C-alpha cells in the first residue's frame, strides 16, 4: 500500500503504525515513505528512537505522543503519556517525554490529545503550547478538530507548526483548499 501511494502522490509521506525495528523503517523508506512515525515502541524502548535517528537521520523520524490530562481542575495542568489508544497510563510526564524524544533524535513530534481525539471540541491548547515551547523541532497538533477555527487556534494559540485533522475532511465537511484558505486569511503562512 505504501509503495502504491508513494507512486501517486508527490508530497512528503509519513507512515505510522507498528514501527518497532530499524528493519521496519528500512522497509517503509524503501517503499517510498519519507518519514516514519514511532509511538509505542518509543515508550517501551526509548533507545530505539536514538538508533533510528542515527541510522536514518532525524529528518525522517517522527515520534507520536499520545497525551492525556491527569491533573484535577484548579491544579497546575499536567499531562501524561498513554498507550493502547489512550487506555494505559505510563506515568511519563508528556512535556518531559517530548524533550527526551527530541534529545534522542526525533525530528518532529505528532502530538495527539487523547482527551480530545474524536470529540470535535478543538485541540487541547494547553498541552500543545507546553510542548511546542519546550522543544526545538516541529510539533504537529492532533486530536479534536471540529471546525476551521480549531485549526487556526492550534497554530496561533497552541504554537503548533502544523495541524492535523481527519474527520472534517473524511466526511467532506470541509475541503483541504478551504481549510488552507481560511488559515491564510487569518495570517498563517500557508502553501495554497
Amino acid at each position, binding site marked *: 500500500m505504501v509503495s502504491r501511494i508513494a507512486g501517486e502522490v*508527490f508530497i*512528503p509521506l509519513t507512515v505510522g503504525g507498528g514501527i518497532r525495528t530499524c528493519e521496519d523503517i528500512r522497509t517503509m523508506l524503501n517503499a517510498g515513505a*519519507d518519514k516514519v512515525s514511532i509511538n509505542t515502541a518509543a515508550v517501551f524502548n526509548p533507545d530505539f528512537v536514538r538508533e533510528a535517528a542515527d541510522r536514518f537521520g532525524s*529528518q525522517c523520524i517522527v515520534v507520536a505522543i499520545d497525551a492525556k490530562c491527569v491533573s484535577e481542575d484548579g491544579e497546575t495542568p499536567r499531562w501524561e503519556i498513554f498507550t493502547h489508544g489512550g487506555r494505559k497510563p505510563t506515568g511519563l510526564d508528556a512535556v518531559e517525554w517530548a524533550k527526551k524524544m527530541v534529545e534522542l533524535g526525533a525530528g518532529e513530534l505528532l502530538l495527539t490529545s487523547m482527551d480530545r481525539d474524536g470529540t470535535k471540541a478543538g485541540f487541547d491548547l494547553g498541552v500543545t503550547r507546553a510542548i511546542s515551547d519546550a522543544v*526545538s523541532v516541529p510539533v504537529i497538533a492532533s486530536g479534536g478538530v471540529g471546525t476551521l477555527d480549531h485549526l487556526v487556534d492550534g497554530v496561533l494559540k497552541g504554537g503548533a507548526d502544523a495541524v492535523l485533522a481527519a474527520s472534517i475532511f473524511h466526511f467532506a465537511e470541509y475541503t483541504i483548499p478551504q481549510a488552507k484558505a481560511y488559515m491564510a486569511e487569518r495570517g498563517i503562512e500557508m502553501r495554497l
Partner: protein
Amino acid sequence: MTIAVIDYGMGNLHSVAKALEHVADENIVITSDPRAIRGATRVVLPGQGAIRDCMGELERAELRGLVDELLSNHSKPLLGICVGQQMLMERSEENGGIDCLGYLKGAVKRFDDKQLDEHAQRLKVPHMGWNHVSHIQGHALWDGIEDKARFYFVHSYYVSASERSQVFGATHYAGAEAHVAIGKGSIFAVQFHPEKSAAAGLKLLENFVRWQP
C-alpha cells in the same frame, strides 16, 4: 530514450524515479551501471544523508570518474537533487570539512541555528518543510513555475555559490541566502526535492525532461 537515475547507494531513488515516470514518456532506470548511465539521454544525480557518505559511496561505486566526466563534457542534461546539488561545489563544512566535486565555485555551509524568526522563536535546523524559491534569473527549468513558488526542503547545509551568474534560485532562511537552484551549461541542480514538491516540483521535472540546453 532513457533517463538514468544514478544509484550509488544514497537516497530515496524510488520517489525520484516515480515522479519522473509521472511526467516523462522516456524509460526511467535506476542504475549504477556506467554503460547505462553513458547511454542515457538525461541523468539525475540524487543524494541524501551526510556528504561524507555520499562522496564516499560515489567513489566506492566507482562512479566518481563518470560523474566528473558528465560534468565536464556537458554531453547531456544532468539534474542534481539535494546532496546531489551540494556535491557539485568545491567544499562542504559538513563532517568537519569535505572536498566535493568542485564543478561550481563556492561552498556548502551550515545554517546558523541561533537565528530567531519574526516571533523571536529560534529557527529550526534542519530547515524542513515548504519554502519559497525566488528566481534569481530565468531558466528553461522555471518555465510555468511562478517566482517564489514553494518547494519542499529537508536540509541543514546549503550551497553558497561564488559566481552569481550560476545562481538561478534562492531561498532565505536563518539569516542566510541559500542558493537552492544553481547551474551551468547542461547542468542544473536544486537543494529542494522536486519529487516531493507537488505541482511545482512535477513541473520542474517535466521541464528537465524537455530541456534542450
